[in-house]
């Protein structure tokens, strides 16, 4: 049905109440691409995790409004690519695992350090580009599963 590449862009304030809007949008997009119900759930979670991270980690909570999350959906045949961009503090993706092992229990924020793990397990590919002081781009890819005839 979809032969050309389609591009959808969603921009939301970096605030917890709008993560559901990202989730609803992607569920519509994924359904149109004929992802299975199970895959759609996976994609919803992965996208929510990326948004949650932008809200909780990227933007200093005391700095007030104007912080937004830009989400780009690129629909190319059976491939859905999602890019989640923030312009927050940035981080070193390589350093996350070791850091987590030391202070995981000290966190009083919601989250287990599971966010990136979920993205990794639920999507077919992912990549993080982050620059300290500039922001973060999380890219993730999911392919529509080929239905194997019984």
């Amino acid at each position, binding site marked *: 049905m979809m032969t050309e590449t389609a591009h959808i862009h969603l921009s939301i304030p970096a605030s*917890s*109440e709008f*993560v*559901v809007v990202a*989730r*609803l949008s992607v569920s519509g997009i994924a359904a149109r691409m004929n992802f299975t*119900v*199970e895959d759609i*759930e996976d994609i*919803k*979670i992965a996208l*929510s*995790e990326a*948004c*949650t991270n932008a*809200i*909780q980690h990227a933007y200093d909570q005391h700095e007030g409004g104007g912080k937004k999350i830009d989400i780009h959906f690129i629909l190319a045949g059976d491939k859905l690519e999602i890019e989640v961009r923030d312009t927050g503090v940035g981080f070193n993706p390589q350093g996350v695992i070791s850091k987590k092992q030391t202070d995981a229990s000290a966190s009083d*924020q*919601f*989250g*287990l350090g*599971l*966010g990136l*793990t*979920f993205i990794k*397990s*639920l999507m077919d590919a992912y990549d993080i580009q982050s620059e300290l002081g500039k922001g973060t781009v999380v890219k993730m890819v999911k392919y529509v599963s080929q239905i194997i005839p019984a």
Partner: protein
Amino acid sequence: MTVFTVLHDEVNQIPVLRVEGEIDLHTCPALSNAIGQVLEKPGSHLILNLDKVSYIDSTGLGVISVAARQLADHDGKVYAVCTQAHIKKVFELSGLQGKNVVLYDSELSISKSL
């Protein structure tokens, strides 16, 4: 999008929280509060009925994990009821299951097993 609700009940002297809606960054503070109120009273276990939860991610598992750790101090556990495959999957992925969080198919099957 359904409204998020947490109802408090008690079955065989074990507190039960029946959750409905989506558990994400926005709603997990409400879940956390509800659990906090229940855990103020001494007791060893908590039943968390998630059968009407249509969505959960790491934020919800974070809340449940905190509760499980608190309960573990008194040898208590979180008994979570969930039958939906996509909710179960999140528990499996999280590695939370097994330790202090046990999944059941219904509240009845918990009662029978205790």
